[in-house]
């Protein structure tokens, strides 16, 4: 138990903290709790945790502010918890550097899966240029894409889009993040570009484009390339 990943929980609700401690410790994590944002920031600097679970509604500091201050000096994965956050809030959090978000009420299974994905973000990439997710294989070095071992032809934009998703596999990317990366800073509002290209990309990489299992829609927020397709 002592060598499991250390999770710093910043949440003012004692009940949620208790639930998180029980669920996480039974799953091999070490847990440190704090109820206030200021304390959370101090503890993060002192303990250097492997993961941070941050609640949005803190009594002293806005959760978003805690996130910004954390990001000033560390890239530690941050999973945000919130009560029925609006899509705008979620987008703001992701743009400010949150790795993922989870809306209360949530299941413990979901929480563990998100934590696993978030932890992976922080690991140095295996430097392998070939990534495989389910039936999809992408060779970033040779710029090649296969589905079920059949080569797929992508346009330049489609490939740029896929490359972005692959590099951030498992992470939610907001519309504006994707548009800025692929089309450029001037295109952050052109969501319709994204809809058309994502639909095209799905036709090429998904088994059933009408029922995607790889490139998932996060309603109102963005897209996520899943890392463990079911």
């Amino acid at each position: 138990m002592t060598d499991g990943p250390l999770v710093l929980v910043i949440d003012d609700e004692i009940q949620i903290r208790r639930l998180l401690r029980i669920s996480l410790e039974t799953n091999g994590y070490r847990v440190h709790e704090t109820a206030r944002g200021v304390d959370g920031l101090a503890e993060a600097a002192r303990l250097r945790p492997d993961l941070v679970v941050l609640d949005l509604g803190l009594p002293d500091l806005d959760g978003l502010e805690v996130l910004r201050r954390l990001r000033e000096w560390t890239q530690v994965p941050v999973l945000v918890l919130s009560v029925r956050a609006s899509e705008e809030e979620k987008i703001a959090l992701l743009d400010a550097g949150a790795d993922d978000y989870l809306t209360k009420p949530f299941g413990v299974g979901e929480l563990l899966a998100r934590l696993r994905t978030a932890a992976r973000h922080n690991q140095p990439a295996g430097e392998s240029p070939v990534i495989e997710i389910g039936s999809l294989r992408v060779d970033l070095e040779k710029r090649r894409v296969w589905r079920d071992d059949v080569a797929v032809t992508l346009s330049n934009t489609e490939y740029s889009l896929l490359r972005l998703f692959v590099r951030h596999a498992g992470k939610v990317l907001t519309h504006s993040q994707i548009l800025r990366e692929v089309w450029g800073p001037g295109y952050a509002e052109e969501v319709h570009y994204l809809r058309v290209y994502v639909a095209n990309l799905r036709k090429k990489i998904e088994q059933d484009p009408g029922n995607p299992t790889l490139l998932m829609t996060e309603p109102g927020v963005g897209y996520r390339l899943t890392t463990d397709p079911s």
Partner: protein
Amino acid sequence: MMDQRPDPDALLAAVTKLEHSATRGKLKIFFGMAAGVGKTFAMLQEAQARRAEGVDVVIGYVETHGRADTAALLSGLPIVPRRAYAYRDTVLEELDLEAVLARRPRLVLVDELAHTNAPGALHAKRFQDVLDLLEAGIDVYTTVNVQHVESRSDTVRQITGVTVHETVPDSVLDAADSIELIDLAPDELRKRLAEGKVYVLERAGVAAASFFRIGNLTALREMALRLTAERVDHQLRDYMELKRIAGPWKSGERLVVAISASPLSERLVRWTRRMAYNLEAPWLAVHVETTSTTSSAAQAQLTRNLELARSLGAEVLTVSGDDVVATLLHVGQQRNVTQIVVGKPERPAWREWLRGGSVVNRLIRTSGDIDVYVISGDPDSSSPRGQSWPTPQSSARQYLGAVAVVMAATLVNLALLPFISYEAVALLLLLVVLVLPLYFGRGPVVVAAALSAISWNFLFIPPRFTFLISRLEDLLLFILYFVVALVGGSLTTRLKAQQVLLQRREERTRALYALVREFAQLETIDAVVKAAVAHLGAAFDADVAIVLATGPDRLADRAHPASSFALDEKELGAAAWAFSRQRAAGRSTDTLPAAIGTYHPLRAPGALVGVAGIRPRNGRTLTSDQEPFLEALLAQVALAIEHERLGEAQERAVLLTESERLYKTLLNSVSHELRTPIAAITGAASTLRALPDDQADARLALAGEIQVAAERLNRLVENLLDMSRLESGMLRLRLEWCDVSDLVSVTVQRVRPLLERHDLVVDVAPSLPLVQMDFVLIEQVLVNLLHNAAVYTPPGTRVRLQAVQDGNRLNLIVADRGPGLSPESLDRIFDKFYRAPGAAAGGTGLGLSIARGIVEAHGGTLSAENRANGGARFLLQLPLTPPPPLPAEASLEIPDD
């Protein structure tokens, strides 16, 4: 007759005047015969005296004209700074009315009552500023010269030859509480003039010099003295009335002045006003509207004349009738008139005779008891018919046309001559002349009549091709022809004019009727305003703006959105003034005449409901004959708005009862819905704690119960939150271009667990366009519809989710094979808290209501129906708009191998 009791009406008038003056400020006028008599000086002296008594005196506007002794009197009196108005290249300074009103002194000095304000000021005239000050309870000292008194301006012009443009209505002088005559002997004044003590405008130097002739000054002095004396007489009478002192009671006289579209009618009006004042008699100004057409210039003059009469205190009437004399006398008898004032005609006697005698003569012969005054200088005292002979509007083209018709008819007759006699030719030509007025004005008809007579004589009467007429018979025929042609032509013309007038009246009646009928069918104030703007605009060829009242004394701060022109701050100021004073303001009125629109208060029986602004499109003002029509329309508009107001208030009361009912339902429903899952959770949790270790199956089952109950609670809370967001209007759509198949797949993923025992079929048409919507909310709608299907249909049945394009709409359909909807449910299924009878436990009756709210916020529709072969069908329609263009894709492809 011998009744010596005071007339109750007169007594009442005296009392109201007194009461009125208790709240109003007092007006004192320093009155003089000409500039330089020392009015301002006297005013300042008295002001200083009042200040010494401790009265709060300020100077609103005083002009010292650089005279040192006058300027010295200013010392110690606080001055309210003047307000500057930029006008062309210069800056004009005026009394700052608002500043004085805000300062609220006890007494304010305002020099030169007759002054005309700079364009852009609230009122056109300074005396209007003064009336406002009095209204606000502030006492005012002011100065006036006799030549500036409206009813005397004519006489002044006759005496001095100077036309006075700046005048003060007599009613303002009447309202003064005291008038102090500042008298100076003419010799003395001339001496002061010579010493340079009288301020005279440089450019008017010569004119001024002749103005200040001793003869003029004596006459002006007499006028000033007489005016003051008359006033004293009045005051005495007021006093006697009030104290019930028997005396010379009101004469019982009543005057009528006949007004036409002549500029000289102004003189008649002023004369009558003086006469009426001296007799203390009420007076009417009557215009008789005949069938004749008048030019727009004449119409404008008429409007001015009537306006002058109104401003001088007359009751103004416009009546229709073809016979001026009869109509005038009819009005006279109806209104118990004792004296009629008409102008002396100056047209030649033969023309009078041709028309059946002079109006004046006939009036005098038939007036009976009524005295008739004939005042000189007005050629068209009461017969505007004179103006249309010949009709000024007939263009050159009309004349040419008439000549051409006569020539054509003559040629045809020349061709016919071998077969008919020349007498028959005359009849044919006559027919043409009689028909002509249907298409031509009076002038061309006269020309045609003359021309045809001449051509008949020249071309047809033997000896032909000479103007000679050899037979006496032919000469008689020729003369007869000429007379018949003229009279016939003019009769037809008049008939035509009558028809036009009738038509115009009919149009107005029809417009009024259409408005009333349309209003009866409208159900909201917005609709009424929209209709009013359209109807008023069409009737007067004008842009219309309507500003509604928001309370008994408050006007909205912007025009109603249905208005056809926008109001800037100045226009709104005029509208606000019209509203607070209940009088028209803006263009072509005395108040804020620089505004582009004229603003009329909308008066309904119950309250003032707003203001209507009219801006004629052709840039003209409304004519006097349009005004009564406008008033009638506005009255209808006001009535309709008030009607809707009352209706809405009643509706609000009904809504309130309804919302109380909803509130109760909500409490009942929510308390039940909250308590059931809480009971389940507490029960299951307490059992779990007490459960022995070996009961693993029971433990799992209880945990499952807790989870189901929690999910149910969560759904309830989300529904309530959604509902309150919708209801509070806080729901903001995040419209984005969305991919429908994406929407469907996300929805299906979410509802799959709910529908795992149903046969869910998804059918998305290929290549649907992108749709602009709030992805998350529409997803919520679909989830609610599918959840509904899951709850209300038996397991194993099919539920179909379909997306197809239908013209410029997207149809999303959720169809099931359940029991369908009862007729009652069909009606009410989207109502809040409505739950179909026999519905399974676990719903709040909010899901569908929320769904509809969201869809309607998108400008779409959500409806329910029963399917032909059983089951229910929900149809969600969203509007489609063409998506923006996509960037051109770079053609570089990833190589295949």
